[in-house]
């Protein structure tokens, strides 16, 4: 056997081995975050809120085209929402309603709705369709966010003034 063939086989073999090991390790620790679903979803939602506030400010400032990145973030976050609500994950810090698990398909559909609406917004911004962005943003708080917050969240008691975002 030629030395070159052997070397190639060894390299290829190690690569395959590496990939197999890599995949195995990755599938063992797929979670990102602290592992506490309430803390993790509240962190996620804080970022959803920050992106949503950013989108509104950009639209008010006439920068409709620049909301694509925020809308993309919302759409990606929405995909993770159901996994952050394992059954019965309620603490006194949580404002989630137990209805979530009684009406799970509805809850999943609401998350999917956010994902789709945000993707639509992203596409409109990418296509530089300012009028469409403004129209979508006009009702987004109610038909994308509110559609889930109204049935499934107990509103927080304090209305916070707008804060500078980190």
């Amino acid at each position: 056997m030629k030395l070159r063939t052997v070397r190639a086989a060894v390299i290829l073999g190690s690569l395959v081995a590496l990939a197999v090991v890599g995949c195995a390790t990755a599938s063992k620790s797929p979670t990102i975050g602290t592992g506490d679903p309430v803390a993790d979803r509240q962190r996620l939602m804080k970022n959803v809120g920050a992106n949503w506030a950013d989108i509104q400010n950009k639209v008010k400032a006439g920068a409709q085209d620049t909301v694509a990145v925020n809308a993309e973030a919302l759409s990606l976050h929405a995909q993770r929402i159901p996994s952050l609500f394992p059954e019965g994950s309620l603490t006194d810090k949580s404002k989630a309603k137990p209805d979530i698990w009684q009406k799970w398909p509805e809850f999943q559909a609401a998350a999917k709705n956010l994902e789709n609406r945000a993707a639509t917004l992203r596409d409109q911004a990418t296509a530089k369709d300012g009028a469409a962005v403004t129209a979508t943003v006009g009702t987004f708080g109610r038909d994308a966010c509110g559609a889930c917050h109204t049935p499934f969240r107990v509103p927080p008691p304090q209305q916070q003034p707008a804060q500078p975002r980190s």
Partner: protein
Amino acid sequence: MGVLARRAWHLAVLLLVSLVSLPALASAQAPSAAELARGKYIFGATGGCGCHTVPKQPVNAGGRRYDGPYGTVYSSNITPDRETGIGGWTDEQIITATRLGRRPNGERLIPVHPYTVFNGMSADDLKALVAFLRSVPPVKQAKQPKKISVPMFESVFLPAWLAAFAPRESPPTSAPTSGVARGEYLVRAVAHCGECHTPRTMTMATDNTRFLAGNPKGPEESEVPNITPDKTTGLQWSEEEIADYLGSGNKPDGDVAGGLMGEVIEGTLAGYKDLTKADRLAIAQYLKTILPIKNKIGK
């Protein structure tokens, strides 16, 4: 008088009665488009009469459950169905129930329906509202019977409570059309903000000395925010932000309305979101003029 003559007499009377009543009936049954639009607007300004709709169920068909210290009641079917709704009631009877809390048979409504507040609505607005209610598709759905657990609640306690404790709004000669007065009218009589946002006394009456100062034990176990202009515990949004919130559900910090507030903003066939910008601003302006009350809600 012979039988024939009597029959002829009856026929003549019948003819006369129908001639007189026909035009009246016709006018009652065909409100103008403007009247219907006004009614729908008022319907939206109440939050879509949302207590009468179970979310995602037929609009206005009632059946929503309310637990109180006296027992459990279910909201009424206010669709124009003749048997199970209000289709068989006259306009006056519907208005009396809305304003004074009396059914056509004289029975008192349990004041979960805030008639002491709706009494502050103008006659024209109520008339338009009734016309709109009649235009919504009828739904046949019988009301679930209430379960009152307090003995003599309706015969003794309720009338005494209404007379002694419940603050009652009085109707204006006509609805204010602009400015802070318009905002006050909408907040107090139509949107009935105080029902959730005003704390309650020992007797469960709204404590209007602390009007809109928040309720730590609001409906559906929610902590309802203090929306007086108190600097530390109240609502500190600008007028523009308040008006925007009522139309879009968006809070200045990127959060959105949820729970019952989300419901009244969205409404059913109409909600707070359908108020004009001028009216939403009038509400915001009025909220800036009420007494600031220090009352911290929540941790």
